[in-house]
């Protein structure tokens, strides 16, 4: 009986410790992998709200000034109404600012910023010099394939885009 209880105690302790070990670093970078794998980030509102229409684009793809412009014009978000209640909007904006390209929290962000002027606040990730250079071998006809739709559909080719993985091995361009 005593051994049984002790056994249960040990199993429970190991369980709690490993749960903590896996949950603690979820908000920080682990393995930036040469800049093509993004830090795993968690923000419930960002994932829930932004990802209802497109993938939750990573904050590191645009500078803070861009996110401020975007989140300030959600009632006309590229031609669609994507308005949010003020509390949710503020929560998401704070998260985006904290991890933005110019926040210094990711290798990917540093690369994006190399092509963005100090006063620039681009609204489209696809317009940044970094994005254009990275995709210069993709033709216009490829972008407009039915299986892709537009350059905004990262996950059409970057099969692990939703997990923040953008390295070449995970790319498969659909027919």
């Amino acid at each position: 009986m005593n051994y049984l209880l002790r056994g249960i105690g040990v199993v429970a302790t190991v369980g709690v410790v490993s749960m903590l070990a896996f949950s603690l670093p979820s908000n920080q970078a682990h393995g930036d992998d040469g800049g093509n794998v993004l830090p795993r980030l968690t923000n419930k509102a960002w994932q829930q709200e932004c990802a209802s229409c497109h993938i939750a684009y990573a904050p590191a793809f645009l500078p803070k000034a861009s996110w401020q412009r975007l989140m300030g014009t959600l009632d006309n978000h590229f031609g669609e109404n994507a308005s949010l209640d003020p509390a949710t909007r503020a929560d998401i904006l704070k998260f985006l600012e904290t991890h933005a390209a110019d926040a210094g929290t990711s290798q990917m962000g540093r690369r994006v910023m190399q092509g963005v002027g100090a006063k620039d606040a681009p609204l489209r990730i696809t317009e940044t010099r970094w994005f254009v250079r990275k995709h210069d071998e993709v033709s216009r006809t490829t972008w407009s394939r039915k299986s892709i739709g537009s350059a905004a559909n990262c996950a059409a080719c970057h099969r692990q885009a939703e997990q923040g993985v953008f390295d070449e091995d995970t790319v498969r361009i659909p027919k």
Partner: protein
Amino acid sequence: MTKHVFLGGSLIILGMAAAVAGAADSPASLAARYALEAGVPVSALSAPRGEALFRTEHAGRNGQSVSCASCHTPDPKQAGKTRVGKQIEPLAPKANPERFTDAAKVEKWFRRNCTDVLQRECSAQEKGDFITWLGQIK
């Protein structure tokens, strides 16, 4: 002793059931709420009017013709697609039981999508009609 455990267990289960019932909205409860807001009896909500709202084409923001069906497909039991290609789960509760179970979410999407399709917000009566139509799809 066993009696106490049994009683305690039943109370917990009852409590959980009550919590779940209290938190969740349903197509019927939402339709009733919109009828109340519109000042009409639930029986005055109309499925055919709801279907017409779904299918009618309007001049969209960029001049192109647009309706609910443009993204949701003409069959509300089918999955639709957003403009950037992300899947939209079916609108009909028959095909997607999560539909119309969260009042805040329902209000958010009516606000956004009515503005996009109709260039104005929908009235409470229109929202009630819409849910009534989708709720009775078999």
